[in-house]
């Protein structure tokens, strides 16, 4: 998924300038950052799932390790949900714009 910034309604030469200035930021593109963060959250979720399976099988030595893994996954998930809410809010704000 690639999120592109909204093109400002500007005269042609200004627009060129604006595009040139956003170009170097492509490496740290918001979409890429989001993707990276989501991958990390997914990793934590998988870790929590593995911990839960170990716990069910009785293979876990420290109960707190399993609990902490699950808690970390939960917190990372909540952070993701909050970020998603902010993005959706921004999107809806723009959609409500009068044209």
């Amino acid at each position, binding site marked *: 998924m690639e999120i592109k910034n909204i093109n400002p309604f500007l005269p042609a030469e200004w627009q060129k300038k604006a595009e040139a200035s956003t170009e170097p930021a492509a490496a740290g593109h918001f979409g890429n950052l989001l993707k990276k963060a989501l991958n*990390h959250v997914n990793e*934590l979720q998988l870790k929590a799932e593995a911990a839960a399976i170990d716990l069910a099988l009785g293979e876990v030595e*420290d109960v*707190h*390790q399993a609990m*902490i893994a699950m*808690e*970390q996954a939960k*917190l*990372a998930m*909540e*952070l993701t949900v*909050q970020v998603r809410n*902010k993005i959706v809010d921004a999107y809806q704000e723009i959609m409500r714009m009068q044209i």
Partner: protein
Amino acid sequence: MKMFQTMRTSASGLAAERLRLDLIASNIANISTTRTESGELYRRKTAVFAAELAKSGAGQGVRVAAIEEQQTDPRWEYDPTHPDANADGYVAYPNINLLQEMTDLITATRAYEANVTVLNAGKSMFLKALEIGRG
């Protein structure tokens, strides 16, 4: 992930306290043990903790540096019928003080609880931060 540094630090504390509990359990279980696998008397075990440098520099976890065996004189009891009695009829028992073990047990339990409290505090701070800008 730097986000969960507090949790990792507390987790190392929890693991350390649990190990301490294991050693106390071992000491109490072996309070009258006269022989071990090495053929010697059971010795009271204590854990030596060392601070561990975290990668980020902030906050240090704890690790178990060593498990020490107490080298004090055994507790001698007269019992000539015991198979491990010496020529004079005395049996060497480990010098474990039950009162001391129980006090250590309370310390370990409370320290474990304290670590859980810190962990929960970190968690509520994280959740509080997520409330920024809400409402």
